[in-house]
């Protein structure tokens, strides 16, 4: 095979299968062998993806692999981008997993023997990890409806099995798995219906055939295909209100799996929307993109609001995924909207910003979930209110989580800042070309991006400041210890990737512009959407920004200041002293601010949206109503969408099930009768409609 993309991609698939086979090795060497082989597969996938983004597409047609349909693979720059991202996340997660899956020495995981061989280093769980990565590599490489749906379902099944890996340890895992299983399969049904309808209408199921036929389809069919697939893909991407599985499944999954799901799998939802909406269907009417934009905006705001008030570290990160995928969809929606009004340069820029945000989000979310897993392993808790003081026992994890939090919070030396800057540029400068629709939507979109950026800063300040700094608030945090080297290595890899993406986003500008070029609806402008290795220059506008030079300037300023301070202080040593605390004290850990108290002002400000459930019980002593014996205060911010939207549906389903119980009384004759009547009814319907 002479095509480097194909060679690397096949190598990735082969290595992935090898990794799955390595799960058969004895337990002692299993995690290292599986982790190593999966990391190698990930590295090969990165090579394949980058090669495709460099303009070397590859395709293959394997007619005998599947009966009837065959397997059709094609790696183009857009697919390559997602393959490279998935591969990179897989490398970090696999290296980390080699350490994470081993039974802990003295941590809360020490009770591994109690699992009866069903821990994270169990055979099935270990084999599932490379298979999950393989499935995620196949989704963006699939080039026909059957192949795509098969890869999609494989991805859903393997990830589901990984989510429930720890079901023997916590009861909540099973519930999370159930939610995830139902949501992902409802999503599959929607995608299946949409794509099958698309294939039927265009008399062929290869993506090439769909692309040719899309223009000739009646608008109603095109819209039906788009809306159905959008629903399915949005549920995978964790877009509100289809996000309910995400904040349950991500916290309950083992942390390297959370990283893979949150940084790689949710991207596939975005991939699907871009592939179907902008490539296969070639764009559509403005209302499609307004739906995408609105869903993205709602998701960004709702996600980050829930993240700000969350006290569970991994739940906070999961909601932040909802937020970031929302921001990506804001970019995708803006791109679609602008392409409708003919502003193609701006559309390409918006899509580039969205894709760059996918890359950046994958980087920092991998890092953050891995670091959260490291904390969970060391302390046995994810509750921010019980954490703190991890700086001295876990210096590496603390530093790495700090880097991740900075990258995630849209502040200058961070990677999210670069992509959000590009997104804002495309939104701000859309006005003159965008027409009236843009004039109404873009300001709102800018406000949404800005508010979610501001709240994200608050959320990550809380996560890092309360979770890692200050003093331990619970027993778990007090006996924390640093993680094994393999876990730290996985996090360091992710952090290095983030830093490169943050300081030199120009490096992948070429590949990004090729990936965006695949989307027929926004392709066309001759110039690259973003240029410049050091100073970023979006096409068609005079704005510039250079993350690298900002960082250099900050460092220079800090060095100068240190020099001045040294000279002024004249060598006086720093003395340690008791915190002053306004003369109070000595302060105990109970007097510290917790995550709940940190978020309390924001809960008050956004009271109407969050609707917190608060309980205050005051018990006076028996003799007098004025002497208080005890006060109990409880507050909980539940997911309101889940309560308002899903609980009634679930209750109705349960009620229907109970009401229908008399229909199934155990009599076989009755069941045969049902079959007969249903069959007859169908025949009648067919006879009438034909």
């Amino acid at each position: 095979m002479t095509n480097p993309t194909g060679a690397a991609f096949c190598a990735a698939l082969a290595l992935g299968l090898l990794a799955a086979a390595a799960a058969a090795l004895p337990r002692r060497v299993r995690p290292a062998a599986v982790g190593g082989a999966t990391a190698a597969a990930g590295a090969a996938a990165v090579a394949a993806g980058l090669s495709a983004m460099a303009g070397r597409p590859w395709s293959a047609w394997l007619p005998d692999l599947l009966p009837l349909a065959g397997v059709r693979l094609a790696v183009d720059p857009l697919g390559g981008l997602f393959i490279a991202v998935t591969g990179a996340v897989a490398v970090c997660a696999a290296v980390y997993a080699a350490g994470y899956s081993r039974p802990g020495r003295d941590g809360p995981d020490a009770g591994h023997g109690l699992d009866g061989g069903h821990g994270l280093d169990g055979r099935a769980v270990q084999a599932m990890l490379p298979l999950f990565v393989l499935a995620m590599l196949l989704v963006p490489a699939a080039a026909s409806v059957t192949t795509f749906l098969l890869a999609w379902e494989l991805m859903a099944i393997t990830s589901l099995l990984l989510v429930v890996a720890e079901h023997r340890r916590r009861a909540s895992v099973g519930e999370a798995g159930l939610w995830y299983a139902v949501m992902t399969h409802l999503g599959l049904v929607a995608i299946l219906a949409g794509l099958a309808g698309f294939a039927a209408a265009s008399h062929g199921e290869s993506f090439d055939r769909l692309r040719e036929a899309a223009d000739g389809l009646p608008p109603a069919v095109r819209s039906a295909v788009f809306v159905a697939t959008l629903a399915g893909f949005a549920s995978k991407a964790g877009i509100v209100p289809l996000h309910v599985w995400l904040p349950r499944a991500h916290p309950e999954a083992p942390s390297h799996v959370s990283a893979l799901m949150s940084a790689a799998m949710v991207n596939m939802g975005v991939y699907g929307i871009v592939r179907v909406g902008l490539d296969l269907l070639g764009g559509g009417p403005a209302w499609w993109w307004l739906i995408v934009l609105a869903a993205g905006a709602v998701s960004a705001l709702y996600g980050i609001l829930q993240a700000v008030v969350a006290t569970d570290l991994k739940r906070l990160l999961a909601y932040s995924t909802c937020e970031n995928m929302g921001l990506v969809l804001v970019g995708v929606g803006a791109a679609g909207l602008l392409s409708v009004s003919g502003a193609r340069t701006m559309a390409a820029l918006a899509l580039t910003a969205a894709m760059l945000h996918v890359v950046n989000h994958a980087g920092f979310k991998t890092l953050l979930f891995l670091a959260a897993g490291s904390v969970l392993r060391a302390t046995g808790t994810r509750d921010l209110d019980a954490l703190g003081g991890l700086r001295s026992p876990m210096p590496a994890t603390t530093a790495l989580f700090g880097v991740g939090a900075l990258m995630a919070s849209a502040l200058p030396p961070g990677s999210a800042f670069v992509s959000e800057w590009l997104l804002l540029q495309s939104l701000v400068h859309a006005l003159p070309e965008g027409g009236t629709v843009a004039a109404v939507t873009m300001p709102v979109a800018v406000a949404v991006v800005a508010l979610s950026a501001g709240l994200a800063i608050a959320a990550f300040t809380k996560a890092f400041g309360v979770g890692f700094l200050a003093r331990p608030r619970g027993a778990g945090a007090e006996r924390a210890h640093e993680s094994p080297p393999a876990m730290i290595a996985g996090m360091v890899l992710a952090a290095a990737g983030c830093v490169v993406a943050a300081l030199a986003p120009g490096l992948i500008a070429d590949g990004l512009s090729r990936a965006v070029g695949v989307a027929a609806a926004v392709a066309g402008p001759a110039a690259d959407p973003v240029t410049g290795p050091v100073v970023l220059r979006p096409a068609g506008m005079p704005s510039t920004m250079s993350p690298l030079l900002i960082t250099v300037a900050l460092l220079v300023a800090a060095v100068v200041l240190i020099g001045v301070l040294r000279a002024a202080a004249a060598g006086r040593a720093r003395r340690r002293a008791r915190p002053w605390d306004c003369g109070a004290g000595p302060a105990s850990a109970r007097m510290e601010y917790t995550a709940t108290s940190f978020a309390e002002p924001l809960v008050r400000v956004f009271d109407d949206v969050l609707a917190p459930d608060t309980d205050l019980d005051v018990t006076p002593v028996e003799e007098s109503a004025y002497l208080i014996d005890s006060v109990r205060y409880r507050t909980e911010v539940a997911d309101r969408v889940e309560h308002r939207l899903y609980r009634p549906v679930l209750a109705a389903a349960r009620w229907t099930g109970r009401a229908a119980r008399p229909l199934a009384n155990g009599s076989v004759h009755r069941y045969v009768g049902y079959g007969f009547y249903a069959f007859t009814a169908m025949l009648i319907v067919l006879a009438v409609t034909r």
Partner: protein
Amino acid sequence: MSAAGTVGAVAQVLLVAAGAPLLVGVMRQVRARLEGRAGAGVAQPWRDLRKLLRKEPIAPHGTGVLFRAAPLVLAGAALVAAGVVPLVTTASPLDGIADLFAVIALLALGTVFLALAGLDTATAFGGMGASREMVVLALVEPTILLSVFALSARVGSTNLGEIVTTTLHDPQLVVSPVSLLAAVALAIVTIAETGRIPVDNPSTHLELTMIHEAMVLEYAGPDLALVEWASAMRLTVLLGLFANLFAPWGIAGTSLLMLPVALLAFSAKVVVLGGALAAGEVFMAKLRMFRVPELLAGSFLMALLAVAASFFLAGP
């Protein structure tokens, strides 16, 4: 990159660094006189800084690297912002590396580090200040970005040099409704960002009402000097930015001769704005913490109207 631009950039950084405490001195003096006190003199903040710098550096037990790094980041970010924002010259060689979004984010970076340092002290006041500062920061963000949107829509760029130069060439832009609405919105968020009355009281002595001061309670000696100096620089940069976005006259372009004039003009503008702010503070009380979001929501509405106006007035 012109020689005049480079000289101008260096000059404005030095002017901000040296003049920021004096601006604070002027504002305190204005307040003192209006309240019927003699006041400590304009140079008092510098004297305070000198005193603090000579003291012994102290690190509270249990604090780490972040606590020590926060004042450096805060001051460093303010210095970089002072170099980027067109205060004295529009031809700063740093202009291209950061636009208005980036400057706002840079200043936010300093605030975030200070909030983390407040949390790091493990005291209740530190956490309280950090929490409140983050609320204000999060709510201020949309207003700032929408005002930027309104101002940059007429120019086609978010680069500050570009915005100021365009206003300079086309003065009637300033009296448009877009500018006025954006000015009101930006004025409110500038007050919030710099922690002045009615959002925060910089000279409060009651810990429970503090926002900014609560975060820095544990700082002493040279660290405190750095924090105070950085806060003064932030105030100067934001006031200067505000002045030059809406009244850029007197700013130097690529000519060296204009530089002294520009330095004087900038000082005059900032002193006038600072004096007005201090005078306004005399007649106002601090808002309750939970009324602040209402104020910020009002400014957000102004900014939104500004953007709407910028489209419908510019349209055919």
